[in-house]
């Protein structure tokens, strides 16, 4: 079985302005969504409320959910804790109410399910946790980009490929964030991990293409750069598609079977992998070409060798 029985020969570089345009439109759309709708930040970032309550007999979770919603608590998560007589209700932050007011409201709602219900504890998670998380995620992103820029510049002898890789890699998480703003899927800590992992995977593809560009240039330094780039992308195309299909299989398994905790995480990975495939084919090499990439940048000694051949 093969996706491409013959070597493909798509003209990726010739149409690069179209793809740049598409990417810019998608990124602008993502930013607009981020600023207008915003992310549906989870309790990890915003802080929130947890209520623990006991019932004289086993608590009926669906009845509890219904009464809690009727009492005006939206987005409440209800589950058993320890025994079936103890439940926990998790709520988004309620900044305009004191914990005593929350407690009374919650207790009244639970007493409609069973008059013997009592609230055991109520705790409010402070928002300061989130601000520190945002800071460390920002640093993680900055350091990842810096180290990757340096590594590619070192391995391929040119900042042009580094820049192409970094811009392509920034493009992907922006689209993922845009997707989360659009769908309003809860954005929690796991999603942050997924977004940062997406950077790693997107790079993986880009670097494989770069490796082939290096090899093509080595074989024939006189070929026009846009021809070499097209050849490199075409020659790695079946691998790019194949790897993405396989990775998507496991991510879809996670999305469907992994349960609610991992849903946002797997969605972010899936979107990120799609965006990463696109950007490594259409964006990263094209940017290097725009920056004037030639064989001489990757093989600095070629400059000297060419000079030697002059009469």
């Amino acid at each position: 079985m093969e996706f491409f029985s013959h070597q493909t020969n798509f003209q990726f570089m010739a149409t690069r302005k179209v793809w740049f345009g598409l990417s810019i439109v998608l990124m602008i759309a993502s930013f607009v969504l981020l600023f207008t709708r915003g992310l549906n930040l989870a309790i990890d970032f915003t802080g929130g409320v947890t209520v623990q309550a006991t019932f004289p007999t086993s608590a009926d979770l669906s009845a509890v959910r219904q009464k809690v919603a009727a009492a005006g608590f939206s987005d409440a998560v209800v589950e058993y804790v320890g025994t079936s007589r103890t439940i926990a209700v998790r709520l988004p932050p309620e900044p305009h109410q004191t914990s005593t007011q929350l407690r009374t409201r919650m207790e009244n709602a639970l007493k409609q399910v069973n008059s013997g219900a009592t609230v055991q504890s109520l705790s409010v998670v402070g928002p300061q946790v989130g601000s520190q998380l945002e800071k460390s995620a920002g640093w993680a992103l900055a350091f990842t980009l810096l180290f990757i820029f340096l590594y590619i510049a070192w391995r391929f002898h040119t900042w042009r490929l580094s820049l192409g890789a970094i811009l392509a890699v920034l493009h992907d998480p922006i689209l993922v964030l845009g997707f989360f703003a659009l769908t309003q899927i809860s954005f929690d800590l796991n999603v942050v991990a997924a977004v940062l992992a997406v950077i790693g995977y997107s790079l993986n593809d880009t670097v494989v293409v770069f490796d082939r560009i290096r090899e093509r240039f080595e074989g024939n330094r006189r070929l026009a750069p846009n021809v070499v780039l097209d050849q490199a992308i075409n020659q790695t195309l079946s691998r790019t598609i194949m790897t993405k299909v396989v990775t998507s299989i496991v991510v879809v398994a996670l999305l469907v079977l992994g349960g609610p905790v991992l849903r946002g995480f797997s969605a972010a990975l899936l979107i990120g992998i799609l965006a990463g495939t696109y950007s490594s084919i259409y964006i990263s090499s094209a940017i290097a070409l725009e920056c004037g990439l030639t064989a001489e940048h990757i093989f600095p000694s070629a400059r000297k060798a060419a000079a030697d051949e002059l009469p």
Partner: protein
Amino acid sequence: MLEYARWKYFLIAAVLALGLLFALPNVFGQDPALQLAHADHSAVTSAETHVVTSFLQQRKIPFRRAYVQNGRLIVRFANVPDQLRGSDAIDGQFKKQYISAKTLVPRTPGWLRALGLKPMPLGLDLSGGLDLLYQVDIKSAVRQILQTYTQDASRALADAKVPVAGIADVAIDGSALPNTIQITLAPNANLATAQRALADPLRGLTINTSTGSGGALIQATMPAAKILARENYAIEQNISILRNRANQLGVSEPKVERQGNDRIDVQLPGVQNMAEVKHLLGQTATLEFHLNDMENNAFEAQQSGNVPLGDKLYTDTSMGIPVLLKREVIATGDQLTNATVGQSQQGPAVNITLDSRAGESMLRTTKQNVGKQMGVVLITKHTETRKVDGKQVTRQVTTEKVINDATIDGVFADRFQISGLTLGEAQDLAILLRSGSFVTPISLVSENIIGPSLGAANIHMGMMALIIGMAGVLMFMALYYKVFGLVADAVLVANVVLLTALLSMMHASLSLPGIAGIILTVGIAVDANVLIYERIREELRKGVTPQAAIRAGFEKAFSAIADSNVTTAIAGLVLWIFGTGAIRGFAVVLTLGIATSMFTSLMGSRAVVTLMYGGRRKIARLHI
């Protein structure tokens, strides 16, 4: 002919065998269990096992096994509902004797345990439990030490009879918090006398003096290193207090660790009674130093019940004997500024530093009482919730005990040693003293409780995703690459085994994002194989011989595999360093997964392919 060095085969075989061994303990699963410990840490005897088991039998609660391990009674159950029923019943019947904790006990067979092999411990999201995140108020720790300096300085100046116009804490050099004591002397004050008086109390501070029109200005600044040391001390102190208390809960493996700059994360697997635990962790402790009453006999007082006037009867916890202490307090714990483990001529000791007021009081007392004994009393306060006639009753409980009783060897003031201890005793005492001294306030910034049924559901879902995802990948690879796909499949399975082995060796706890990391690694590990096989196909299309195609495939794919994996590993390592909790768990798996997949794809798959095609002189065609 394809060749592959013989030692590489041996290396691969050895790594695989070791990997299988280390990964093996994970396949047996875990039993939900109850762990019963005595409140005073004394060992549970096997005779008690019988009492508990017959009680469970009488209540018709089925259990698997009950035995004593490390002085604690472990009762294993077949499932979580049995465990919960057992827990409720035992708590009702044996509340006074035991501290009970729900836990998970691995079903690893004895011979593996004898080799010291253990499965990965489960994270709280899989085992259920309580996660508390505390924030340490390090600002108040710095403020407090500056205030002590200020008090000492003003007392020293008053003693030296230097008139002072003003003394204040200020922030200089762009510091966000006060870091400097600013003393303005009266116009008629003698600067040299003031400097001499301040030399001792302000030792270690950077002192700047300037003379103005009003009077001399002395600024004493805490160096940044000292502030950092104070902040670290505040966090370490709270960590030791929390760890001490978490251990007293009887939880099987409590985890108390620093998180980031000023946070402490407390993980208590199996704990569900949030309110009670929070009270226990939040209890306050204080210390008092008292002289012993050497004229009266403590044993007599204990037996007769007649405690001499002005005395109080205590029990020395380390000796288990009664002690009579005078009621007069020499110094209290909030006057203690530091307690560290040190060395004396008699071996390990605890170095104690008091503030100047307590130092003076200590000096006065020790001058008159050399050769007599002094006791250290630890007073703890906590709220206790108990069921009385079916109602929850909360009351404040205060316990007082003598933790140390030693002879005064000489005259001392604010710095002294408690010696005659073993290293372990010295460490414990330093922790206890610190926990009874000024404690930097902490606040609970986040708490998370996961029920055991939710944990079990998470394990189930994670494992399902892993099995289905992996089966999909294995099938797809076999279809797409035929024989070579099967090689890739074998390599993939070996990769999961090696990754599991590495994680077990590191004793990294497995969380749901960690399982996601393993699943993802399966997807990623395929990539190296795909790169190699696509290259082989390419070479075959060029018309080279199968053997040459295989060789070229492996060699030419190497640089792409190496570079692309290094860049992904950079992202993984940065996440590992910056991430906390779940993110770090994911990053650890991701990074290790890259390492194992490089090994299995480059070395393992080459070995298998060479074994298959290497010996044959002529191959008609490759099934790829």
